């Protein structure tokens, strides 16, 4: 589902929103609890939360008046999949580097 990833990555293009995600990884938090550590205004934090919520990265409880924010792990699990892809790309680069080095070593020995 690339559209899920696209939305998640777009939302995570902002360092404050990544920081909010990191904070929520430690447990749910209310808007007020998020305002303090970030030294940002409440409306600014709320705007960031809206973006994260629209991307499906967080959900907000409708029950309590403080509407605490929770992490939604679905999109993040997919991002973990991307990290694994990165490892594969890196490994593929190095396997090609092995071949380049074989040629270099052969040249060195023939000199």
């Amino acid at each position, binding site marked *: 589902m*690339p559209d899920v990833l696209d939305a998640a*990555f777009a939302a*995570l*293009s902002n*360092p*404050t929103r*990544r*920081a909010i*995600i*990191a*904070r929520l*990884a*430690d447990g749910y938090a209310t808007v007020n609890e998020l305002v303090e*550590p*970030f*030294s940002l205004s409440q409306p600014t934090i709320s705007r960031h939360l809206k973006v994260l919520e629209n991307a499906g990265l967080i959900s907000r409880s409708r029950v309590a008046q403080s509407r605490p924010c929770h992490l939604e792990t679905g999109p*993040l699990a997919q*991002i*973990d999949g*991307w*990290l694994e*892809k*990165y*490892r594969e*790309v*890196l*490994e*593929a*680069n*190095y396997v*090609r*580097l*092995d*071949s*380049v*080095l*074989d040629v*270099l*070593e052969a040249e*060195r020995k023939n000199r």
Partner: protein
Amino acid sequence: MKERTFLEITRLSAVELQWKRRFSASVASVFKALTTPDLVQQWLTGPPGMTMPICEIDLRVGGRFRYVWQRPDGKEMGMGGEFKELSPPNRIVHTELFDEDWTGGETVVTTTLAEQDGGTLLTCTVRYSSRSARDAALRTGMGDGVAHSYAQLDTFLAGRQP
């Protein structure tokens, strides 16, 4: 016989990732392959189908490098940076930044090459830029993983067929 090495990426600190890889070649050869444009173009091509049509390396402290990758559909993505420290053939410290700035600022990459059992052990450490919010993001393992994934999204997407 080549030993099959599995690459493991380690979270070294809140803002640093590190991986190690062994090569059955001399330190001098590995250094050459990492810093010579026509050699880099042969291996640093990323996902299948991508090529690196542009590779410029001005190998001196303060010198810059520039890589441009091309996807099968012709779209390009670029990355560049500057050499901060050079101790050939054992150590390279450079900055790097994708043109689209996925990483929210320059990352600093330290590459060391050490002789090991007749081969070479490459250790690569990537340090992400720290901003106050980013520091908070990277304090947890999750933030780290997210930031790192994001840093490389360009590479992944570039490898996808349109």
